[in-house]
């Protein structure tokens, strides 16, 4: 087993107003999390199309996490409520297809929660690393 060698690839979509700022705060406070996490800035978590998530998996991502403002704190008042429904359904569908449920996550991280951002990323990266490479979505169609 080469679990220790394996480095997962994680894409994090962060909303500009809360979570991206939370990630910046984690940086300001020098809170470590794995370099495997790469952040993409979006104006609001509701900008994250399920298509982006699948695209990331398609191109080899092992985990995708979406971070937005806490419910009730959305800069655009309602964006994260739509995100919550969309992701709940999408995650449930991926699980239904037999894809490991730990590969996707939706988290609420405020601009003040640098520590939560780092902790979340550490935890997520650890869980994804434990799963190993993301094969299932790729293999779903080719019967071995």
């Amino acid at each position, binding site marked *: 087993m080469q679990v220790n060698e394996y480095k997962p690839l994680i894409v994090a979509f962060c909303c500009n107003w809360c979570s991206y700022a939370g990630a910046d705060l984690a940086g300001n406070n020098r809170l470590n999390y794995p370099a495997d996490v790469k952040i993409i800035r979006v104006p609001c978590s509701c900008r994250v199309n*399920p*298509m982006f998530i*699948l*695209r990331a*998996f*398609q191109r080899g991502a092992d985990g995708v996490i979406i971070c937005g403002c806490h*419910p*009730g704190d959305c800069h655009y008042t*309602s964006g994260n*409520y*739509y995100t*919550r*429904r*969309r*992701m*709940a*359904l*999408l*995650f*449930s*569908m*991926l*699980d*239904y*297809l*037999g*894809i*490991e*449920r730990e590969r996707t*996550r*939706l*988290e609420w991280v405020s601009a003040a929660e640098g520590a939560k951002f780092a902790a979340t990323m550490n935890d997520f990266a650890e869980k994804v690393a434990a799963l190993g490479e993301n094969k*299932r*979505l*790729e*293999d*779903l*169609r*080719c*019967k071995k």
Partner: protein
Amino acid sequence: MQKITRDTLVSKAVSLLENGTVDAVLGWGKGEFAYDVTPTVFETADEIRENFVWNDFCGANFSKYLVSKTRKLEGKILVFLKPCDTYSFNQLLTEHRFDREKVYVVGVPCEGMADISKVKAITGDGISAIDFTDNGLVITTLYDDEPKTVAYEDILAERCVNCKSKKHVAYDELLGETGEVLESARFDEVAKIEALTPDERFAFWQGELSRCIRCNACRDVCPACTCEKCVFDNPNSGAENKAPANSFEEQMFHIIRAFHVAGRCTDCGECSRVCPQNIPLHLLNRKFIRDIDNFYGEYQAGAEVGTRAPLVDYNLDDLEASDVFERRDSE
């Protein structure tokens, strides 16, 4: 066996066409084989008398055709809709996809439609003639001397076995009587899959989806897929793939397609009917419907015109995405 007769439908169509109520009729037309029924626009009474078909293979849902047909036609078009078709009709109206004024809906009661693959499984291939009798279908094939009788209950399509409603939710006129919304077991199959282990689920779907030849029939027939241009045909969408370049794109196609119709899919079952590979695509749609019902309260797309679909709505105390599995596993 359908209770309403072809003659009733034909004379209704002919009289509405002749008295000028409508200018065209959207109905089922003769195809190459007895079981092969083709959606057809009739413009004359003679065409209707000649080619109009009404039998147990008239499964096609015409709601979707109205989007393009009403655009082309100046006057009114008559459309025959079975109960499940009327849900799609309402959903399309909710989405402003055509002008209600340009359509004259005649509701047709439906006793359930036959699934040709179930028929062939019994009789074998080479069907040359079908007689519709009270006892079932009497089928003559090229390879058997004696015609075979198959009972209706053995060949009823899955979506009709689990019929969700015999109620017409939209019509201008009814032939026969409308029924009630039914208690159906349509989610049993979904629940069964949910109860499997992730590995088993994966194996199940791998088995099903690996057969996809990406013919797009499911998309083309789906009354919820009426986009002017599909994201999969659009070079700028970032998801374009007319033919799959790698295996992964297939999954993307089916997941995204199901996601795009989530909350809008009326569960008419056309996708599974037309799939040449018999992939149970309705199980993807029903999964979303079941989740929506469980997470956000029961919702039937198309039951009424103008309702707000669950994915464009929210509650302040909605289920968190992280609690989805807990909620489902606890059931």
